[in-house]
C-alpha cells in the first residue's frame, strides 16, 4: 500500500505570540516548531496502517510538505517516526489561499499511485480546514473529512465522523483522500534509532507549483485582551454573590 501524508511545519502553540514588524507574520524569535497536531495524528495513522498490512515492507509512507527550506526539519522528524521518504515542495513565501496550495499539492500527488492520501483535518495555525477537499477534487478522488475512526476493508475506507451531538458512519472506495481528526491514534515518540535512520532516508526537493493566489493575507493582529476578572469568594458561601453577579452584572442568568 502506498500512502502519502501531507504535513505542515507550525510553531508550538503553547507560547505567546508576537506579530513581526511586517504585520503579516508571527515573530519567530524564541519559537519552536514541529509537525502540526492533526498532521501528526495523520502520520501516526499512516504508520499504523502500514504496520497492519500483511507485508509491511511492501508498503510505503511518503511525507510531503510545502514551504521554505526549514520544512525539511519537519520532514526529517516525520521520517524519524517511521515514514519512508519525503518530498519537499519548495516555496519560500507564505501562501494562504487553500486553492492555490491545493494546486501545488495535487500536481505532486497526481500520478503518484497513492492508495491513500492523508491530511490532518486542519493545520493548527491557519486553521482553514479546506486544503484536503480541494486537493481531492483536483485529483478526482473521493474524500472523507475529519475522521475519528478509520478502517480499511476490501478496498474501501470505512470511517466515522463526529458531528454536533451525533456522528456519521461513512465510506468510500479507494484510492481515496482522508483528513484525520483527533482520536484515531496517539503519535509515537521518535527513538534515537529512528532519528539516525531518518538522516539517511531520501528527501527530494522540487519547486512548488502554487496556483494563483486569490485569497491574500492583509495583516495579523493580537485579539483584544480580556478584561481581568476577580475571585469573588471562597467555598459554597460565595455562591449567592456569584448568582447575583451573573444576574445583574453579566446578565446571563
Amino acid at each position, binding site marked *: 500500500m502506498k500512502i502519502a501524508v501531507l504535513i505542515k511545519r507550525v510553531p508550538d502553540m503553547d507560547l505567546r505570540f508576537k506579530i513581526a514588524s511586517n504585520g503579516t507574520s508571527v515573530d519567530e524569535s524564541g519559537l519552536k516548531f514541529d509537525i502540526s497536531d492533526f498532521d501528526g495524528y495523520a502520520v501516526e495513522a499512516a504508520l499504523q496502517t502500514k504496520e497492519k498490512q500483511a507485508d509491511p515492507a511492501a508498503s510505503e509512507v511518503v511525507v510531503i510538505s510545502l514551504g521554505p527550506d526549514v520544512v525539511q526539519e519537519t520532514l526529517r522528524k516525520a521520517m524519524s517516526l517511521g515514514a519512508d521518504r519525503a518530498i519537499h515542495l519548495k516555496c519560500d513565501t507564505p501562501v494562504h489561499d487553500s486553492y492555490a496550495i491545493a494546486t501545488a499539492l495535487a500536481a505532486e500527488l497526481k500520478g503518484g499511485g497513492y492508495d491513500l492520501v492523508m491530511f490532518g483535518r486542519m493545520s493548527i495555525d491557519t486553521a482553514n480546514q479546506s486544503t484536503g477537499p480541494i486537493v481531492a477534487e483536483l485529483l478526482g478522488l473521493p474524500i472523507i473529512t475529519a475522521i475519528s475512526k478509520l478502517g480499511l476493508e476490501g478496498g474501501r475506507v470505512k470511517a466515522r465522523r463526529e458531528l454536533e451531538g451525533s456522528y456519521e458512519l461513512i465510506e468510500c472506495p479507494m484510492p481515496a483522500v482522508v483528513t484525520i481528526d483527533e482520536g484515531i491514534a496517539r503519535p509515537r515518540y521518535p*527513538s534515537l534509532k529512528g532519528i539516525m535512520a531518518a538522516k539517511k532516508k531520501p528527501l527530494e526537493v522540487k519547486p512548488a507549483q502554487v496556483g494563483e493566489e486569490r485569497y491574500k493575507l492583509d495583516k495579523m493582529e493580537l485579539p483584544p485582551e480580556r478584561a481581568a476578572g476577580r475571585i469573588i469568594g471562597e467555598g459554597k458561601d460565595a455562591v449567592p454573590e456569584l448568582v447575583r453577579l451573573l444576574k445583574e452584572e453579566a446578565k446571563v442568568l
Partner: protein
Amino acid sequence: MTSASSMVFTVVVVAALGFFAYNVQRLVGELRLGHRDDVRWNDLPRRFWNLLQIGLFQKKIFRDSVAGPMHAAIFWGFCVLTLGTTEMIVAGMFPGFSFAPFVPAPLYRFYEMNQDLWGALVIAAVSFALFRRLTKRVKRLQGKETHADDPLLILSWIGVLMITMFASHATTGVLHDLFWWSHALLVLGFLNYLPYSKHLHVVVSLPNVFLSNTSGPGVIGAMRPMDLEGDVAVFGAKDVTDLSWKSLLDGFACTECGRCTSVCPANITGKLLSPRKIVINVRERLEAEAKGDHSKTLLDDFITEEELWSCTTCRACVQECPVSIDQLSVILELRRNLVLGESRFPAEVMPAFESMEQRGSPWAFDPGDRGKWAAGLDIPTMAEMAERNERPEVLYWVGCMGSFDDRAKKTTVAFAKILKAAHVNFAILGQEEKCNGDAARRMGNEYLYQMLAKDNIATLDRYGVKTVVTACPHCFHQIGNEYPQFGGNYDVVHHSTYIESLMAAGRVPLREDLHEPVRTFTYHDSCYLGRYNDVYDAPRETMKRALPMLNLVEMPRSKDRGLCCGAGGGRMFMEEKVGKRINAERAEEAIATGADAIAVACPFCMTMMADSIKSRDSHVEVYDVAEVVAGRLAV
C-alpha cells in the same frame, strides 16, 4: 608424609590448580564478552584507599551491626588462615616445609596462635551464620532470585574445613593423615567449587572493590557519556554483551546478601524491582550466553520494563553494597536501550519529553515566564548585567521547579532574600535557563539530555559564568558533575552550603529573638545532595545556626541511609501504581519522629513530602532550609 604420598599430593595440587586456572580463563573469557572501553586503572590512590577501607577494613560490611562482625570474623579469619593453608599445602608437596626458618621464633608462635584463634572465631561465626539462616528468616537473605542452598553448603563446608584443620593438629598417625588429607582435599575442592557458586565473591570481591567507581567524590555518580554522532549499533544495553566488562565482573562479585534490595525504596514499598536480582540476572544471562545460548536477552527475558521504571536512581543500593557493585549502571543502560532504541517508556512520560524539547522544561509553562518570580525584587538577569558590562559574583541557577512551581517559588524567593540581605552580587538567567536535563538522562533519553545540556553550557559560557549556586540538587549534580563531560566546567555550590558559608562569614543578619519557642525539626536528606554529593551536614548546620531553639531529630533512615522521596530518576513524571507510595513511607517515618516540621533542601523532595503529609491530614509543616533561614532574617 611419605615421599610417595607427597608426589601423589603434588599431582593433586597441580591438577586442582590447573582446573582452577582453566575456570579463571573461562571466566575472564566471559568478561571479554562485554565492552572493553572501560578504563579502571585511573585514579589509583582512590582505588587503593577503597580497597583498604571497604575491602580490608570491611567498612560497608559493618553497616549491619549483627552480620557485620560475623562476616568480618570469617573474612579476616580467611585471610589469616590462608597463610596456614599455604604453608600446609607446600609442606604437603615438599615434606618438612615450614615458615619457621624464615621468621623469628616469637613471630612464628604468634602466627600459630592466630591460626588457632581465627580458626575458632571462624567456627563460631560460621555456626552463628548457619543458625541465623536456618532459624531467623532474615528477610533480605530470602528472595526468588537467590540460590538458597548454596550458602548452607558453603557455610557447612567452611565449618568442616575448620574442624578438619583442628582435628589434624590434634591427632597423629592414621587419624592425622585422614584429617590432613580431608582438609587439603576440601580446601582444593572449595577453591574449585567457587567458580560454580555465588561464593566466587571470595576471589572477585577485593579486585571488584579496587576496580569499582562507586565510592568517591561527586563526579563518581555521573552517568557514562554516550557518543551519539557515530554509527551506533546498540544504544545503551539490550543484552550482557552490550554492558561493560566491569558490570559483568559485578555479577561475579555478588554474594546475594540482599543488602541492596533491603534499602531499595521501590522494593521496600512493594514494587517488583530488586537490585540484587538485576545483578544475579546479569551473571545468569552471561553464563548462558557464554555457553552459546543466543536466544534470549537480558532486557525483557530477564529484567522487565516494570522493574526498570520503578527505580528512582537514589543510589541506596550502590551505597550499601559491601563489594562495590554498581547495580544502578545496569538499570540505566537498559533504560537507554528502551528509550533510544525503541521509544519504550511509560506513556505519561511523553508530554514531559516533548515539553523539554519544545519549551526547555518538563512542564507546559511558557518559557517567557521563567523570570516572573523575580518581579519587584530587583534581581538582574545575566543579559542585563552583560549589557552594563558587569559580572555578578555568582549565578543563581533557579531550575524549572523553582521558576514555575508555586510552592517551589517560595523557596526561590526566600533564597533570593537571603542573598540580598547578605549583599551578594548575583544574577539569574531568567528566560535563558533551560531544564538541566537530569530527568531526561536518568530516564534514558540521552539525546534529549545532550541537547539541553549543550544549550545550557553554551549559555553559561557565553556569559563567562564561573560560580553557580542552586537550590535544586539535580541541577547541582548536573552542572557540577555531568556538564564537564561536554566541556562545561563550573564551580557549583548547593544553596544550603552557600548559606552556611555566608553565615559563617557573618554576612547573614539574623533576628535577635530571645523568646523563640523550641522548634522540633527533622531533616530529610536528598539523594542527589547526600549519596551523590556527600552533602549531609551543611543543611543541618545552616538550620542550627538559623534557629536558636532548634531540636533537630533524625529519622531512623538518615544521611547516607536516607530513604528517597520517590521523585528521582524521572519518577516525578511517572505514575506510581504498585504497592505503597514511596513518599507515604517516608512521610510516615518523618511524622513518627514527633517533629512538628520537616526541612528539605530540594524542590522535588518538597513536593513529595508536602503532598504526602497533606494527604494524611497531618499538621506537620514542610520547609526548605532557605525558608527556615529567610524566616529569621533581620529585616
